[in-house]
């Protein structure tokens, strides 16, 4: 009776305990955040916390869906990430100017999402890594040429491919982490049997906490702007404070969730810290170009899905290739 795992539903029993504990940790963090917001609200009744409350509430929903997707089984996790890609691509295509003539081309672009995730499901790494940069890249201009509309061609083909790379190719790397086999990950190190799900948690949790800590450091100490024209709220203090916090956490979490040695964990933390910042400001530049504040309204308090996964478009491929180069 003292054996906790045997009391869990069967699908949870198959997960490495460390993944379960990490998921529990996410909800613990949210509980802390909710309590802090509640205490501030009580201490300063005049303060308008509407947006912060919305933001925390959306975090609960996101964490719930993410935890469910990660816990049930790998296929559900892949469907979840495919759906994230689909929503991000849909949001992107709804924001940018598109040509009436390209409706059918956009249909093919959407079709690339399930195909890309199918390569991940069948663990065909080579196809996964070239499908969007090679085949989609070559096919979309062909499809546009067959329609025959040349006015605005370069802009249409360029914007569409950039969106495919950011929302389908980059985000797909999170999903491919799931495929990394425990044996392969562990081979060089002899460390505990962790596997891909733990790497996904490590990447996603660090990327999201990096956003939060850069925001908090920036709010508290921010003075010197990094890219004032693109994102006036971003400061060196926020960036460096956030990177420091993220890197520390990366080193602390690494023994449980990754096969990394401490200096590799340090590097991974720096990659996620700086990569997350760049992803954030790149999407900011896109929104500024389109003269919009949020990319959508799917996540109350956060904006759209692109606002939430902007950092991930950089951290996911960078972290994936770092990890697979060293340990795969």
């Amino acid at each position, binding site marked *: 009776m003292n054996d906790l795992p045997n009391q869990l539903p069967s699908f949870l029993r198959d997960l490495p305990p460390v993944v379960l504990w990490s998921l529990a940790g996410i909800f613990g963090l949210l509980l802390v955040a909710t309590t802090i917001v509640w205490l501030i609200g009580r201490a300063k009744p005049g303060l308008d916390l509407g947006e912060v409350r919305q933001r925390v509430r959306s975090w609960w929903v996101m964490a719930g869906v993410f935890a469910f997707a990660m816990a049930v089984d790998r296929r559900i996790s892949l469907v979840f990430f495919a759906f994230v890609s689909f929503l991000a691509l*849909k949001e992107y295509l709804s924001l940018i100017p598109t040509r*009436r003539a390209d409706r059918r081309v956009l249909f093919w672009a959407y079709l690339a999402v399930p195909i890309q995730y199918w390569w991940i499901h069948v663990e065909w790494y080579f196809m996964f890594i070239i499908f969007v940069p090679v085949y989609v890249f070559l096919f979309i201009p062909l499809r546009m040429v067959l329609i025959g509309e040349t006015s605005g061609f370069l802009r249409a083909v360029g914007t569409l491919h950039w969106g495919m790379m950011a929302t389908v190719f980059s985000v797909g790397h999170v999903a491919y982490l799931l495929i990394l086999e425990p044996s392969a990950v562990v081979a060089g190190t002899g460390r505990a049997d962790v596997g891909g799900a733990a790497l996904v948690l490590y990447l996603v949790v660090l990327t999201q906490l990096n956003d939060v800590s850069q925001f908090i450091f920036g709010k508290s100490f921010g003075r010197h702007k990094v890219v004032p024209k693109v994102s006036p709220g971003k400061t060196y203090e926020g960036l460096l404070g956030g990177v420091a916090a993220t890197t520390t956490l990366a080193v602390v979490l690494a023994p449980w969730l990754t096969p990394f040695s401490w200096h590799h964990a340090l590097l991974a933390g720096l990659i996620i810290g700086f990569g997350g910042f760049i992803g954030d400001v790149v999407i900011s530049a896109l929104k500024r170009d389109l003269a919009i504040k949020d990319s959508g309204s799917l996540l109350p308090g956060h904006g759209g899905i692109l606002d939430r996964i902007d950092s991930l478009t950089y951290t996911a491929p960078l972290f994936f290739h770092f990890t697979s180069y060293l340990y795969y």
Partner: protein
Amino acid sequence: MAETPATGGAPRTHDFGLAVPLPADAPRPGALGRGLKHLFFAVVVRPLVAVVLGLNVRHRERLPTAGPAILVANHNSHLDTMVLMALLRPGLLARVRPVAAADYFLRGRAVAWFALNVLGVLPVMRGGRKIDPSYDALAHSRQALDRGEVLVLFPEGSRGEAERRQAFKSGIAHLAADRPEVPVVPIFLHGLGKALPKGSLLPVPFFCDVFVGEPVRGGEERWADDRAALVSELETRIEALAAEGSFAAWECRHASDKVEMKESWR
């Protein structure tokens, strides 16, 4: 309720050479149709609207929660009707009646059956008055409002070019004047003309916007002796709703596209 103005004497059927002649009284779906309507919305429309489209609704609280009421929106796509019907609270679905062109939906038997019995449309013959002076295009709408139903009406008269609004026709002003207490809710729709434009059968996913405006009533003093004022007020409100958003329109620079687009690449 105000009296029904006698335009053409007692109600009677009109044939107009349609597959299904227009009945004397406003048609109502039977129990089977109502069941199919709920099924169709639960299985097809609501999942399609939630997953393939995704709606960004502003001012949802301005939507009517009970009939009678008239929803008035700009029209670019067959999806417009579906989205507006799916937007109201599910309990109201059976009472929502899209006003639809008889000359389009009642041409063929199969489509006519689906439109009349499942969607529960109120067919209106466009230009019917010219063919038969005794035809009163608004008679069925007045009957439906008197039964407490919610009308969905597109005063442009037809689906226009995607994301281009055409001038509103005056029928809505007459209807509002005949039923002065019924709220007329202006709604701005965006993106549906991109997802499924006129003439296309392939829906392509896009996030769409639905902005709901403050209702007006036909009985208000300001258009007591000028019905056109109500029409232009509705147009103004929908324009104002459109201005709340920031949209990337179709890029439209092809010589054959005669419509002018707003500068979309700022």
